[in-house]
């Protein structure tokens, strides 16, 4: 039933291009919040290694806190939920949307509102942080490519803020 409904994105999926940077809405994906005190139980359940250090990523999985990981994968991927085990795997696919900021000046655009020093934020790192007053999860998936996960209701504002910052680059 729900498959036949039209999907409504909170922001325009039209890509925005400015001097040295493009901002696009990522296609829908599956997101899961993984929580466990003991990393090994999660690794056994998923059958793959989890990054141990906060801020590190391993493939689709990012470590956000001492007992918290975010798994982002293609829609429809079968992920075991681990009922009965001392862990929590929670489906949060529709909680956030992802804006991709890409280009040689992408870091400059993000630093307009993000307090992190992105020159020290190496490719392959991910962290929860803040953009102005909006909480984001920032993932550097390439030297010039950042993925910004933001809650749906904040997305229109964030897209406006990022495109405004990008349009004002000189």
């Amino acid at each position, binding site marked *: 039933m729900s498959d036949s409904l039209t999907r409504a994105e909170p922001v325009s999926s039209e890509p925005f291009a400015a001097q040295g940077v493009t901002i696009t809405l990522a296609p829908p994906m599956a997101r899961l919040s993984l929580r466990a005190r003991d990393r090994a139980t999660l690794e056994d359940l998923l059958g793959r290694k989890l990054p141990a250090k906060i801020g590190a990523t391993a493939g689709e999985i990012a470590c956000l806190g001492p007992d918290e990981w975010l798994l982002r994968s293609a829609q429809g991927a079968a992920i075991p939920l681990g009922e009965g085990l001392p862990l929590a795997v929670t489906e949060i696919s529709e909680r956030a949307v992802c804006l991709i900021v890409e280009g040689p000046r992408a870091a400059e655009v993000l630093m307009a509102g993000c307090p992190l020093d992105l020159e020290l934020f190496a490719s392959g790192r991910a*962290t929860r942080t803040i953009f102005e007053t909006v909480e984001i999860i920032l993932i550097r998936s390439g030297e010039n490519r950042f993925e910004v996960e933001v809650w749906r209701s904040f997305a229109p504002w964030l897209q406006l803020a990022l495109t405004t910052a990008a349009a004002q680059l000189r």
Partner: protein
Amino acid sequence: MLLIHCPYCDEQRAELEFAYAGEAHIARPDDPAAMSDEDWQYYLFVRANPRGRHHERWRHTHGCGRFFNAVRDTLSDKFEVTYKAGEPRR
């Protein structure tokens, strides 16, 4: 910008990402029913409020989400040290 070292992330991060959470090392009494009203109100409401070195709790809200303890100078606003929750008072 004030930078705070998060002992869990092991990184200096901007104060914007953190939230203050009151004085640290205040243990909840084991048996509140056995306490006098005066002791209970002391536990609930009375805080040290020192001028100078202050032990306080902070939370890395927009980061790893963890509570930790910090020693901050209330005069200079300088963070002397931060350490994980549960570790002894420094």
